[in-house]
């Protein structure tokens, strides 16, 4: 009746359990894959690069309006002096051009507003041109809008880091605490299952899911927004694996003793919220005061995001991001070792 030997490998079966629990939970799929993309779309639209802005200005005399209409970057409207003053005051126009005494021209604008200063220069050039002034030097414009320096290029590596952290922390810590709460962990420990396989199954499952998490977001950025990947995909993969393992180790530590979902959720927020704020997902971490920088640079999310940005956008080699990789490595080792020591198997 007995099979001669064990035809199933515990690590394979445990990893399959991880996958099945994940795939069969539609909410988990949404938060893992769809959410980062929705966020990238929303932020990509909000901060998209606009075409050069047309500035609205007012002119208080028909000849002035005619002269100003030569400049295509200005949208000129004719006002009475009083209506023009009102429009300027309420911000509907950036500049009001008035006829002065003795054929002079008066420019009225707020000199602390960049739009006002720009409109003033454009308007003055247009009026001089209309008055017969020609450029003393011939000039020609060349436009440069390069991929890699836009906000979306900055954002995608940030979202990638955020996704790596969220998925590793939530999926790992939840699964562990859920198993402990349901006494499934105790039941598994009552079998001859080697405990290292139980922990390893989380890392193996993570490796496979990473391909999708990272792939989907990178492909989305590249196809929809043309976000560049200037280093080799292998380098990106290596950084993502290191980052994800560091966050998984952090999750093991957070979940090492918690018995309830509420307790572990609190811990996860306590650890993740500072990183959402400080680690430069949405804006550069350099904007925080210098005194905070050593703390910010030591955070694992800062390390992975900085490394991914340097690698993707500037094509930095793995050697160049070694300091960040080192920080991640320290987090990985310290969290994993502490988690093993503290882990409650029942």
């Amino acid at each position, binding site marked *: 009746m007995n099979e001669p030997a064990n035809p199933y490998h515990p690590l394979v079966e445990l990893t399959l359990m991880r996958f099945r629990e994940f795939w*069969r939970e539609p909410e988990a799929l949404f938060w893992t894959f769809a959410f980062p993309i929705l966020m990238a779309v929303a932020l990509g639209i909000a901060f998209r690069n606009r075409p050069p802005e047309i500035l609205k200005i007012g002119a208080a005399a028909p000849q002035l309006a005619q002269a100003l209409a030569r400049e295509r970057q200005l949208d000129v409207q004719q006002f009475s002096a009083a209506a023009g003053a009102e429009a300027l005051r309420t911000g509907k126009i950036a500049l009001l051009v008035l006829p002065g005494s003795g054929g002079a021209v008066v420019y009225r604008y707020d000199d602390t507003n960049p739009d006002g200063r720009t409109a003033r220069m454009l308007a003055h050039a247009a009026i001089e041109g209309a008055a017969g002034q020609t450029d003393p030097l011939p000039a020609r414009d060349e436009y440069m809008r390069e991929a890699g320096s836009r906000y979306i290029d900055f954002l995608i590596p940030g979202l990638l880091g955020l996704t790596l952290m969220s998925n590793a922390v939530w999926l790992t810590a939840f699964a562990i605490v859920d198993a402990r709460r349901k006494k499934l962990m105790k*039941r598994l420990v*009552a079998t001859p299952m080697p405990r290292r396989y139980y922990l390893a199954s989380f890392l193996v499952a993570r490796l496979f899911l990473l391909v999708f998490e990272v792939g989907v977001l990178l492909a989305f950025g590249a196809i929809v927004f043309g976000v560049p990947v200037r280093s080799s995909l292998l380098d990106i993969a290596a950084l993502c694996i290191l980052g994800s393992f560091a966050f998984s180790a952090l999750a093991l530590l957070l979940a090492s003793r918690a018995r309830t979902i509420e307790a572990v959720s609190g811990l996860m927020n306590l650890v993740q919220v500072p990183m959402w704020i400080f680690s430069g997902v949405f804006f550069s971490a350099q904007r925080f005061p210098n005194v905070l920088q050593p703390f910010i640079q030591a955070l694992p999310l800062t390390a992975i995001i900085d490394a991914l940005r340097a690698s993707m956008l500037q094509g930095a080699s793995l050697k160049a991001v070694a300091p960040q990789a080192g920080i991640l490595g320290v987090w990985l080792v310290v969290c994993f070792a502490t988690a093993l020591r503290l882990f409650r198997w029942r």
Partner: protein
Amino acid sequence: MPALRVHKLRKAYQDVVAVDGLDLEVQSGECFGLLGPNGAGKTTTIEICEGLTARDSGEVEVLGMRWDSHATQLRQRLGIQLQETQLSDKLTVAETVRLFRSFYRQGPAPEKVIALVQLEEKRNARVGGLSGGQKQRLALACALVGDPELLFLDEPTTGLDPQARRQLWELIEQFKRDGRSILLTTHYMEEAERLCDRVAIMDHGKVIASGTPRELIASIGAEHMVEFSSAPSLDTTALRRLEEVREVRMENGAVQLQVTALHSAVPALIAELARQGVPLTELRTHSASLEDVFVSLTGRHLRDE
């Protein structure tokens, strides 16, 4: 060699003594029942025997081995079903059994175990969709995948409806016929009477009586129980003097007599009540059970508390 030997086992949680100097011996091939109310220390005892809880003092020998020195070998040879384990809802029956099968060096094929616990029709159903009885049978399947010599079953039928309970009893009887040793805990006396070769009655962390169900019932010296309701004016000392009556107990206005010969005790009781001129209502009789043994030893019911 006994399948399980427990000697002077002691375990305290903070200042509550859960197990207090317990002795047990489960013979090879026997089904042994730990019977007792909730909080008697049954689960603590069985979990120490399963190697899941550390003992404070005393000795535990499982299949001739000790947990301190032979944990890995022991795990391969035991089948365990815990109280209130929830297996993963997202997995199917077949996937769950295969997962557990992968932990054991040898044992039956998953399909055979699924057939044994009669879940073939549900083999591709998610665990989350199973009924209580089906989940409990799946838990048994997970305990059997390593072809264990000794099975630990902690309250295997608690919370099940009568039909599911009987189905589970039949399975456990099947395991007995296969020659496996079984230690089970329960607070259902019918379950212990039906399944167990021997039982130990536990209360407050101690064994207060042990033996075969028949021996224990015989030990209270009465074969039948007579219960009735009467008026407060009833004189119970007169009842005690009746020849067939061993013991009289009053509880919430109901009177319970332990009697030896039912056929002469009931007419004598009716005659005595007629003499006293008190009414007799709700007269019931039943054969003495393990429940009555527990009541007679502790003055409490098994499922009170």
